[in-house]
Every structure is written in structure tokens, then in C-alpha cells.
């Protein structure tokens, strides 16, 4: 009996034991990484982690971030947001109060970002997310939160425009989006762009996440749209392509989003992935020039291929670029590790002012308006998968290859 109570008390006591925190005197930058390493969004979370890792690896290979002649290495401390906003907020609080990180590299999803942002605002710790791109984040105008990926409503219009410039020009479009925050916003941005481009929208549907969409696509087929556009995630992209193929309907153009630039998608659908269009703002062959870390996109893709056996997609690249943005701002104000509040405020000001060319393209954060603190320095790209490779087909300034259009019938591949 007595034993029982003692055990209970001991177990309760165990809860209260926190690993002691040392006063932070250090000669390296300690950076918190909050991302989804488990739960539903584990795929995206791990892609962001790769981006942050690769940046840290590259910085440390060069001896660290050079501040006033001295090099400070970086050390990443991870916290899993478990694809859950509450866990994300707790992760931020732990990294800030226990780990005493200098700044934070942020989550994959917009939902977790929205829960983390008030916490980093409260402690005045700068955060850049290399992935979250929901327009809602920027509308809330969090002072300490930045993002390197342009919002979806900023990128969506470009690929619709590229498609309308093809010959013979498509006239009708069916738009489908999965019912999650990101995919729905993607579909809505395509819709807005299509309306503007005077494409006739024959169907606009939002579907529950992860479902078999064959029946819906059968209905779409009967309307014979020239273009089918789809907003979804990796697994849904695979299902979508296979369903279209199974019902035997080949639109003149099939437009998805950036997920298709990931090698895993191309591997999964093989030759059926060919000639699918996508929207992105970075590819491994993008024409970028940079003086920081990687000289251009190709060098980054090669480094990523070496590290992860995957050239990396625009999410991963955006995360590495987030690191570069911090690095640039730190150098600019000459901040050393263990920053106090005044320095961090200066860091925010520096981030608002930076305008830097990276392997990812230009990084420049908006300081007002609906894209507040989102990167508006990039030009969105329309890409197409050609022979298993991602090729930029629009806008004109960035074209690598002519778009293949109309799409080759599934049957004759």
C-alpha cells in the first residue's frame, strides 16, 4: 500500500524535473527549428528539415557565419510540432526559454505557423518559415515572423497566364482542390487567375482530403475542359494522375502545384508524370546567381543530391534560403551569438531591409500590405515535367524549354 503511494508520488515528481538550463555564453549561433517531424504532415516537415539542415551543413563547412572577421558556426536544435498547433506553440516556448535560441526557423504548415507566431512575437524572437505560405499568416501582420516562399495567391496567376499563351489557346478549365488550407487556397488562386484570363470555368470543386476522385473526374471528363488544375498534396497528386489515366481522359494541359517538382512524385507516377504543369518559384535549374553559399540553383541541387539523394524542391530550397536571409541580416548588423532584445529588434529591422540574391533567387520581404513579411522578391515560374526532368516553361524571361502542348494521350505513352 505504502509502496503504491510512494510510487505515485515519485512518478508525479518526475514530471516536475526539468533538465537545468545553463546561462548562455557561446561562440556559435543556436537556432531553433520547429517543424512537423511526426503526424499527418511528416512528409512536408521532413522536407523543411532537409532544407534547414543543408544550410547549416554548408555554413559550418565554411567555418560558420563571418561576423566582423570572426566565424561563428551554427547549431540547430529541433523541436517536433507533431503536425499540431499546440505542440508547435509549446515547441517555440521550449526553444526560446529552455534552449535560449538566437532565432527560429519555422514550421512547414500554415496552421502550426499561426500558433507559433504569437509566441515568437511575445518573446521577440525572429522567425523565418521556409515553407508556410498561407495568405492568412501575412494578413495577421506578426512582427517577428517572415517567410521565404511567396504566398500562393501571389504565385498562382503565373502558370494560368503561361497556359493561356499556348497555341491553340485553351478556352475551358476545371479546377479541383483538396479541402485543406493550402490546397484550397491554391485552387482559389487558380480560379481567380482563370477568371481574370477569361477562361471559362466549367467546374470548380473542393473535395475532402485523401479521397478517390474518380467519380468527380468522370463528371469533369463529360465537360471536356482544355485544362484541369488541381491543388493538393503529394499523395493526392499521385491518386489524381492515376485516376485521370484510369478514366482515360487526357486534358490538353494538366496543372498541379509545386509538389510535383519533388523527385518522389516523378518516381511514383513514372512516365505518366510527363508533361504535367506546375507552379513553383524555384527549380534546380533556375537561373539564379548568388554570392552567399551556393553560387546558383544547380550547385544547390547538386549539394542536395549528394546529401539526400534528392535534388530538392522549392520547399526545401525555401528553407535553405531562410537560413541565408538570417545569415545576411546578422552580418549586416554584426550580431554575435546570444543576442539580447535590442539586437533582435535590430535583426528584425535588418531583415525588413535585406534585398539579397541567393541560389533561390531574390529574397526581399514586403513591409506592408497583404503580403507583410512574405518574400516578394521572387518571380513565380511555370514548370513542366519533360522526360522525367523539371523544365521551366514560363514566364518568358525564365524559359528553359518550350512547353509541350497539348499533352500526349495517356494511352499512347
Amino acid at each position: 500500500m505504502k509502496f503504491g503511494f510512494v510510487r505515485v508520488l515519485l512518478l508525479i515528481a518526475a514530471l516536475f524535473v526539468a533538465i537545468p538550463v545553463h546561462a548562455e555564453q557561446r561562440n556559435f549561433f543556436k537556432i531553433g527549428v520547429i517543424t512537423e517531424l511526426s503526424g499527418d504532415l511528416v512528409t512536408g516537415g521532413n522536407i523543411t528539415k532537409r532544407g534547414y539542415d543543408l544550410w547549416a551543413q554548408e555554413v559550418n563547412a565554411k567555418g560558420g557565419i563571418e561576423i566582423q572577421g570572426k566565424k561563428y558556426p551554427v547549431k540547430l536544435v529541433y523541436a517536433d510540432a507533431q503536425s499540431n498547433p499546440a505542440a508547435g506553440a509549446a515547441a517555440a516556448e521550449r526553444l526560446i526559454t529552455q534552449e535560449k535560441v538566437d532565432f527560429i526557423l519555422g514550421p512547414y504548415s500554415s496552421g502550426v505557423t499561426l500558433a507559433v507566431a504569437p509566441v515568437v512575437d511575445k518573446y521577440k524572437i525572429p522567425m523565418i518559415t521556409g515553407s508556410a505560405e498561407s495568405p492568412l499568416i501575412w494578413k495577421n501582420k506578426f512582427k517577428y515572423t517572415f517567410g521565404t516562399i511567396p504566398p500562393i495567391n501571389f504565385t498562382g496567376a503565373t502558370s494560368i497566364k503561361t497556359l493561356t499563351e499556348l497555341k491553340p489557346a485553351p478556352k475551358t478549365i476545371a479546377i479541383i482542390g483538396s479541402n485543406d488550407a493550402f490546397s484550397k487556397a491554391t485552387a482559389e488562386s487558380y480560379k481567380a487567375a482563370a477568371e481574370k484570363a477569361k477562361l471559362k470555368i466549367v467546374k470548380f470543386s473542393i473535395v475532402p482530403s485523401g479521397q478517390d476522385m474518380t467519380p468527380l473526374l468522370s463528371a469533369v471528363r463529360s465537360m471536356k475542359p482544355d485544362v484541369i488544375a488541381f491543388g493538393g498534396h503529394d499523395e493526392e497528386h499521385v491518386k489524381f494522375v492515376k485516376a485521370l489515366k484510369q478514366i482515360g481522359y487526357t486534358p490538353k494541359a494538366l496543372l498541379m502545384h509545386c509538389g510535383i517538382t519533388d523527385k518522389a512524385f516523378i518516381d511514383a507516377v513514372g512516365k505518366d508524370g510527363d508533361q504535367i504543369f506546375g507552379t513553383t518559384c524555384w527549380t534546380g535549374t533556375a537561373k539564379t546567381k548568388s554570392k552567399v553559399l551556393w553560387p546558383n540553383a544547380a550547385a544547390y541541387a547538386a549539394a542536395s543530391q549528394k546529401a539526400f539523394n534528392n535534388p530538392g524542391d522549392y520547399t526545401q530550397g525555401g528553407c535553405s534560403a531562410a537560413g541565408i536571409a538570417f545569415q545576411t541580416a546578422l552580418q549586416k548588423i554584426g550580431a554575435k551569438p546570444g543576442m539580447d532584445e535590442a539586437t533582435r529588434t535590430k535583426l528584425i529591422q535588418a531583415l525588413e531591409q535585406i534585398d539579397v540574391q541567393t541560389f533561390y533567387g531574390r529574397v526581399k520581404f514586403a513591409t506592408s500590405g497583404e503580403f507583410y513579411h512574405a518574400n516578394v522578391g521572387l518571380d513565380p515560374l511555370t514548370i513542366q515535367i519533360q522526360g522525367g526532368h523539371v523544365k521551366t516553361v514560363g514566364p518568358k524571361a525564365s524559359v528553359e524549354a518550350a512547353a509541350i502542348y497539348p499533352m500526349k494521350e495517356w494511352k499512347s505513352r
Partner: protein
Amino acid sequence: MKNRGATILAIIGAALLILPLVVHDTFVLRVLTEGVMWIGLAIAFDVIAGYTGYLNFGHGAFFGIGAYTIGILMMQANLPFWAALPAGGVAAAVVALIAGIPTLRLKGAYFAIATWALSRAIQQLALNVEFTGGPDGMRLEAFLNPQFFYYLMLITVGATFAILWYLLERAPFGLKLKAIREDEEGAKALGLNPTKLKMQSFVLSALPTGILGGIYAYWITFIDPSSTLGDLVSDQAVVMVVFGGMGTLFGPALGAILIFAFKTIFWAYLSDFQLLYLIILGALIAISVIFIPNGLWGTMFKRKADATRPQHQPEPASEPAALSAVAAPEEGN
């Protein structure tokens, strides 16, 4: 024994109350706040599952309804938090009342799956209507005072615990519920009204859950269908209650503390092994079901309960003798 138990409870309670004065670490406070919340969710779940024997696989729906009620009232009707909070509990209780009438007629697996289907339907509804923000979720105005949320959570859960303790362990109500759990027909024969009692139990389970959901929403500042209306709350509550011991109040509380502590320690200090966490948690659940089917609490204190039973009959005299006999084997405190 009774006095010692009360003393220990009082000490723990007092320690929890003065804790924020000693601990200034806001992360530790946050963890404790969440831990307390899970205790509340687990004991509320156990009212219908453990005491009444109806496994509610949609417990998370009450949590989400509470969260969304507060979110909508605060952000769209501009009500202050204090005015919105009770509404969260009331909304959950009303849904329990309406859904309970038809659903509680089902038993066993059928009840479990019906509640699960209902909670899924509610989640889909939240994804498809405008006023919840759909898949984008909803952001609440941020009020990030760790002490405030710690005390609010502590007081809410403390009060819930005390009220449930009185109703379930001291008043005849708890025995009546257990009678239904053991033999619903028999309970009817004894003159009890199972329908009414089950309804009361369901509402009693929903009310605090809704309030906790409301506090959660204001505390975390962001809610969406997958985090508040998904399976997370239901799943965790089941695991905590089964691991701790069903049909008691201390069992689920203990289960909640241990599972949550395990989870948090793993999460905070072993984050490189996040997948290992899933494997260990799964294995832990499976193994505990095999070796301690009565839960930790039930296993630890079982011998004592059996030993003291003959000399010690705490049941109120007004209860039919047969009732106490049915309820007896599960009395574990």
C-alpha cells in the same frame, strides 16, 4: 487511510497552487498547463466510459465544439472571454443532450462507432461551413499569460475533479451508473431509470470537456478542424484512461500524468527519436493491455480494495443492497 489519502491530495493541491510562484519557467508552466488539461479530459471521458460503460469514441467532438464556440463568440460576436467560456461548456452539453437521446440506446461497439461517426461528421461540417473558417481554421486574439492559463486550467480541472468525486464516489449517482454498467436490465429491475442516468452521465462528461476546449482555444490562439475536432483528443483520452485504470477518478488522472509526461519528455529531450516514440507508445499500450488490464491504478490498489471490502461498506444505507454488491468489485480507492 482515508485521512492519509486526503492529506496527500491536499499537499499535491497546495503544491500545484503555489507552483507558479516558485517556477518562473514559462515552458514548464505550459507543460503543466497541458498536463492538467489532459487530466481533466481523461476524467471527464471516464465518466461515460469507465463509470457507465459506454465507450465514447467521439469525446474529441465535445472538446472541439467548446473550442469553436469560444472562438466564434470571441472573434465574431466580440464577446469577452469570460462571457464566452461558459457557453463552450453549455454548447458541448447541449450537443451531448441532443445526440445522447438516440445514441445512448446503442451498446458496446455500436455506441463506440456511432459516436466516432458523429464526431467525424461534425469535423466535416466544420470543414465545410463559412463561420468556422473551414480548413483554414480560426485565430483568436492572443493573450499569452502563462500564469493565467495555468490557474484557469488548474481551477477548472480541480473543480471538475471535486464535483465528479462527490457525484461518483460519494453520492448514490456513481453507484447507479456502475449498476448500469454491470447490468442495465438488472438496474432497471431495481427501479433505476437507465435512460435518464446515461443522459446525465453523458452531459456530465461533455460539459467540462467543452470548457477545457474553450480554454485551449484561447490559450493556443489557433484552432482548426484537424487539431481540435480530429481523433487526437479521443484517442489520447482512451489510452490514458485504459492505461491508468477505468471506472475510477485517480486511475485516469494517473494515466494522463504518466502518458503525458512520457510523451513530453520524449518530445522535448529525445526529439531525434520521434519515430521511436510512436513505436514505444504503441508497444506500451499493447503491453499494458495484456499485463495490466485493470490499468495501473486498479492493479496497484486492487489487493487493498479486496481485503478491506468485507469489514467496510461505505455505501449509503438508502441504496438497495444488491446495488452495492454489483458495484463492489470495481471500487478501487
